[in-house]
């Protein structure tokens, strides 16, 4: 079974973050905060069936939401950043690196 890794990266400051895959909550955490020294906040790893899935990032307290569709054939990682009130998702075939 393929694993999709969702990395919450820049711009989180004690935020409530929910990750939904195909409208099912797979990650729900309060107090998500970016460690600026590595540009990383939190990680969700989700086992999925092969194929396309809808991935949604929700910040209920801030009313921010972003959504994308990923195919496990070509995408194994999704990077999520918050910048200027927007949630940006970056699907990738490679793991994200930090330092």
């Amino acid at each position, binding site marked *: 079974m393929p694993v999709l890794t969702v990395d919450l990266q820049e711009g989180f400051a004690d935020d409530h973050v929910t990750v939904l895959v195909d409208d099912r909550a797979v990650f729900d955490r309060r107090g998500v905060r970016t460690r600026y020294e590595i540009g990383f906040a939190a990680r969700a790893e989700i086992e999925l069936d092969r194929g396309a899935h809808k991935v949604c990032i929700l910040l209920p307290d801030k009313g921010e939401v972003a959504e994308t569709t990923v195919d496990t054939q070509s995408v194994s990682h999704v990077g999520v950043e918050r910048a200027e009130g927007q949630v940006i998702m970056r699907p990738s075939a490679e793991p994200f*690196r930090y330092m």
Partner: protein
Amino acid sequence: MTDIKHGENGYGDEADAGFDETAYYPETATQLTPADRLTPRLPLPLFASGLYQWSQRLLVPDLPVRPIPTPLPIHPDLPIPPRPGPGPSPTGLETEAATDEALLPILFNREELRLDVDGRYPQMTASGTLFRRFTMRTHWIASLTRTGSNSYTGAIWFKDGDTAGFPFTNVNITVIRSLFPNQRRVTIQFAGGGATRTRTYGFVSSYFHKVEFEFDHQVGATPVLDINTTAHPNRPASLGAETLTATKVFQRAGFDVRVNGAVSAIPSDGADTNTTWSDAEMHDAMQVYWSRFADRSQWAMWVLTARQHDMGSGLGGIMFDSIGPNHRQGTALFTDSFINVAPGGDPAPDAWKRRMQFWTMIHEMGHAFNLAHSWQKNLGTPWIPLAADGEARSFMNYPVRVAGGQQAFFADFQFRFSNPEMLFMRHAPSRFVEMGNADWFDHHGFEQPDGAGELELELRIDRDKPHYDFMEPVVVELRITNRATEPRIVPESLLADAQEMLVITKRDGQAARQWRPFAHHCREPRGRVLQPGDSLTESLFVAVGEGGWHIDEPGNYTLQVALEANGQELMSNPLRIRVAPPRSFEEQHLAQDVFTEDAGRVMAFDGSMVLESGIDAWRRVMEQLPKSRAAIHAAITLATPRSRRFRTLDWKAARAGQEEAKCFRFAKVDHDGARKLLDKALGDTRLAVETLGGVDFLYYAGHYSDWLEKEGDKADARKMGDACKKAADLRAARDKPGRERRQVA
């Protein structure tokens, strides 16, 4: 054990000796004006950049003298010494623009200047820090334009700290260059804001700050501490071939780098070599293996090369020390991570890996200098408004994040930090002590000043347990010891003038308070030579000061003292004391009269003939609590004015303009009364030393012995002399273990 190795360019202690011209100075002097080009060039370019300092001058005595403890000065002639007006002007390298200086509400004791106009990566900036007795710091930064071969001008665009006494908006700078460091000078005329001021600074170093690195590694993780810049073919054509080290990188950023050679190889955890590191484990390892570890801020960092972090191979390195009050001391990089996996098809994979590991190390070290990632500059609370620069070719950018990825990054990377990063590291304010804010003391005490070590400041008492009776006036002793291997000169009045130090008292559960003495003794700053291991000790009557009593309630207290000596900021140990609750209703009742300003003043000045209510309070202590420790202090207080022709000012006569002799009234000497009181106070040597402290006991007993001798009572004079000897022995016995413990290797 510390084995300090200077930067690989062979620094000596002399800041300028063996300076690595190639490390810091540019190959081409791009800042030359046409006038410069006409001047014949010396073999070495005479750069002006670096650290300069101004401070109050100390008069040095002709001959070294062995120190003897000097007692707390007592003015025998006036019950309360008058508070003097503004002190003497600070004497520095220059003649002050006295008239303008006098307009300012604050005088500054020490100033640092960082001039950054030539050498490697000049930022055309000057910045300064003005220090005033710990309680005030002012930091300014100005951008400069060259106006002549040795002159610059610019506007001050950043101010921080106590800016009220620093109205200036512009600087005009004149530089005196010289081959001889002691002849280099920078004169700054500050202007704008309705005031002017001129100050000349003497050269200290070609670098802006000192910093120390220690590189340790986990067994099995091979550190890469240097690289050949041309080993990998993907590089700028202009990049020179050299062996690059962290020392060189940070020297070029303006730091006087020392590498602590005490390298530790940290054993992997038994057979389980796959064990990964958590941040907490690295913090623990830092405490164990870093020879410089201390729970305080210091210009030093620990760099660990380890195998892998808990986060896995996706984390190349981390500045892990971001929790708690003293963060940014430790960084780590991980060899079992992506930084050791060259991209497929790379022409020189080994060189790529070495370069990436070195790059990551410098990147993490940059975080320890509080540098953010290049794309984060506008996030968080930047020190000045900064624009994110996601394309920067800096150690602080991720190579993979730029357009074209790591290939494009390294094709154009000069192994340097960006200019805004250089500006930050060289000129942003160092973390400063925030005075008047009680909370800081609750958490981590004072910020420890840099460069501690040569002179040691100790707060001590002459008793086994730091327990005091209720109403016992708390006297502590302040001792400065030369821990260097060379003699050191300190101002003679360093410990005697409490006005020149910062004394903090704090009762548990209450806000910290700054203690100030009742009087300020103005003195010529004379030097006193301290031989290696020698000390200077003074008493400090910390129970009461200007503004009232500090130690007047039962409970636990913390006392700490900071002062500045020879440009070095010294911090004492925090001394914890406990004050017992009152033993009786009588004590409680009496306390209402004792803990008054008058009673405090009378005791601080060893007696008075005018502060009646204060005198009366101590008289009642002697009557009602004759066996108490407070009664010993009371007896001294009441005895002193009786033992001499106490002089009081007749205000009426003085105002009427009478000649001086008629303005004073003299009390008669009360021989018997004084003797009775002093015998009571000093009779039990051990007890008196405990409560008065050794310094004060020796002072009072010594004077009493002299007085008895003068009165013709040789036998009792000798007895008091013996008591002095016993007191000195008691002190020596108490100091011995401490002295051995603090022995310098």
